[in-house]
């Protein structure tokens, strides 16, 4: 039982990160009907850049990026603010440049052309990161001094609590923005019908820019949380984040924000709990190294049975 609770808690933490990434996919898909393959790399870019900030300001030193000065109180808040805001800013700016230079000229092009360009952006971005930030697997400091709590016999670290609170706050903010503000109404209108929204006087370009900025900021937070949680970041991590974020977005019903969050958590849980119990369920035939198979199988099954995702609307995805 303890093991189950432990696995579930760990799974939920990573699930929150997936949910944040999935939201970025989902929102961009909502307004542009395109899959932004580069989203995973934008997340990693945020982490890479904030690490560069930490090193440039002398907070972390050496190959292992060890924190030299103890971070407490105001200092900690300032540093965390710098890390997250810096990362978000870098990802957002990059995302907007990509939107302006690549995606906007392709707005009326065929969907396949757009997909290929997104693929190109993803490849170019990850390799540019390799050349600019370096090839090594970078050790990323957790910034918080590790403390552990016990919940139902399982151990939970303050970093996990931090990630959970941060995610929940961001989600509340985002849902408020989308559902209650004018910008949110515009986003929903553009998602519903871009041309109609334009005719009604909404500045579609501005809305799309806002969506890209929001998606990239959430992605950067996810990327930094991922780096803090696993203690490392690497120029190729974006590919895995891309697949899992995309999978969450699709399982949840792309375009549906609540669905994305639920699916992200579900995938996190599935990975952790499924991985833990797979050997027991199969009598040792399949080890935990098969856990990703679970995720992909669930994805394929979801797409086949209910292609619109668990909460999505059916009409967009299947051509009769």
């Amino acid at each position, binding site marked *: 039982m303890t093991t189950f609770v432990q696995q579930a808690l760990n799974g939920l933490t990573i699930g929150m990160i997936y949910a944040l990434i999935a939201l970025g996919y989902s929102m961009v898909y909502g307004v542009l009907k395109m899959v932004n393959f580069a989203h995973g790399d934008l997340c990693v870019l945020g982490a890479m850049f904030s690490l560069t900030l930490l090193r440039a300001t002398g907070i972390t030193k050496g190959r292992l990026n060890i924190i030299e000065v103890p971070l407490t109180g105001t200092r900690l808040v300032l540093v965390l603010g710098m890390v997250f805001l810096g990362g978000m800013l870098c990802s957002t700016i990059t995302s907007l440049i990509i939107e302006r230079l690549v995606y906007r000229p392709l707005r*009326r*092009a065929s969907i396949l052309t757009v*997909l*290929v360009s997104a693929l*190109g952006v993803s490849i170019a971005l990850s390799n540019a990161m390799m050349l600019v930030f370096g090839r090594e697997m970078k050790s990323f400091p957790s910034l918080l001094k590790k403390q552990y709590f016990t919940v139902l016999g399982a151990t939970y670290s303050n970093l996990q609590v931090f990630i959970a609170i941060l995610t929940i706050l961001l989600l509340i903010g985002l849902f408020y923005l989308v559902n209650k503000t004018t910008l949110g109404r515009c986003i929903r209108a553009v998602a519903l019908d871009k041309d109609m929204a334009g005719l009604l006087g909404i500045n579609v370009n501005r809305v799309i820019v806002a969506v890209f900025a929001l998606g990239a900021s959430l992605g950067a937070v996810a990327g930094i949380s991922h780096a803090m949680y696993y203690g490392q970041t690497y120029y190729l991590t974006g590919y895995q984040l891309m*697949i899992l974020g995309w999978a969450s977005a699709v399982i949840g019903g792309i375009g549906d924000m609540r669905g994305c969050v639920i699916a992200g958590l579900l995938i996190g849980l599935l990975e952790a709990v499924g991985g833990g119990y797979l050997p027991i369920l199969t009598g040792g035939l399949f080890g935990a190294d098969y856990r990703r198979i679970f995720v992909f199988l669930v994805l394929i099954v979801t797409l*086949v049975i209910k292609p619109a995702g668990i909460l999505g609307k059916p009409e967009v995805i299947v*051509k009769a």
Partner: protein
Amino acid sequence: MSNYKNDAATSRSPGFSQVRRYWHALTKNTGVKRALFIGVAILLLALPRIITSNYWLRVIDIAGLYVMMALGYNLMFGYTGLFNLGFAAFFAIGAYCYAMLASPLHNMHLPFLIVLPLAVGLTSLISYLLGIPSISLVGDYLGLVTLSFAEIFRILVNNLKFTNASYGIINIDAIRLPFFTFKSVSDYYYLILLLCVVVYLIIKRLEDSRIGRAWMAIRNDEEAAKTSGLDTRRLKLLACAIGVAPVGMAGAIFAGMQTFVSPESFTSRETWLIIAMAIVGGLGNADGAVLGALLLTLLPEPLRGTPIESARTLIYGLLLIFFSLFRPQGLLPRRYWKGEIEEETSG
């Protein structure tokens, strides 16, 4: 209608269409056409005599494998519009099929002529089976399913004892026919050349056939195709099965000429390389796929060993962006039959 086509082509790139017009004028003359054909054939056959470098021949061999794969991709994506992101897995199926049936691993040494159809058949069958539940999904969703399949397949190959897990399979038999064993890179050159020509001719033939036109109709407008009485589902499944066949074939030959396979040869890198080739060459045109595959395997080679070799992957990515933006139809655009309106392009 044809006027519209010419206008569009002229306004897009006058220089290029000029060249094309000269080319058409030149090749209209059957004598010139025949001479060109014979010249190219002689050049291709004599290539191992002209290029004595094993290195370049090996690069050309690999380019030939990519030609086959790009032709397959072109059939699925270019003709029919099916977005497949799992080509690496089909390449691996072909390669592992040969590796397991012709190596000491399971103590099986079946001859190439038996394994090749098996590998091709298995690859097609798996693609067909994967297509049955997922074929009705729209573009990027199909991409996601095939990508997931490729990941699942990679995890399995990397862990199953049956495929010798991450250690890979060594000492795979060289490809042999009843009276001949392929040894050197130039031996393989002729094998690959032959199969490339076969695949090319088949696909070219399909392009002009009823099925080919039906595929293109599906790509252009599936609803319309369906209304005209086409069984779009069956046609798409057919494209799935036929499109990966050359990929399975390339995999089997790869295993034979490499004499070693391991999971690290079949990463997603292979998939997007093939996509880049089909895009750069020109989607929907078999000649384009051939050109793209040759260009993207041969051109980066001189960079090897120079200080900018680290940027090769970056260049691939930028090429994809560049072509999507400014020449989405690729270097050799697909031909439009009479009455068809060219796809609206951007830029």
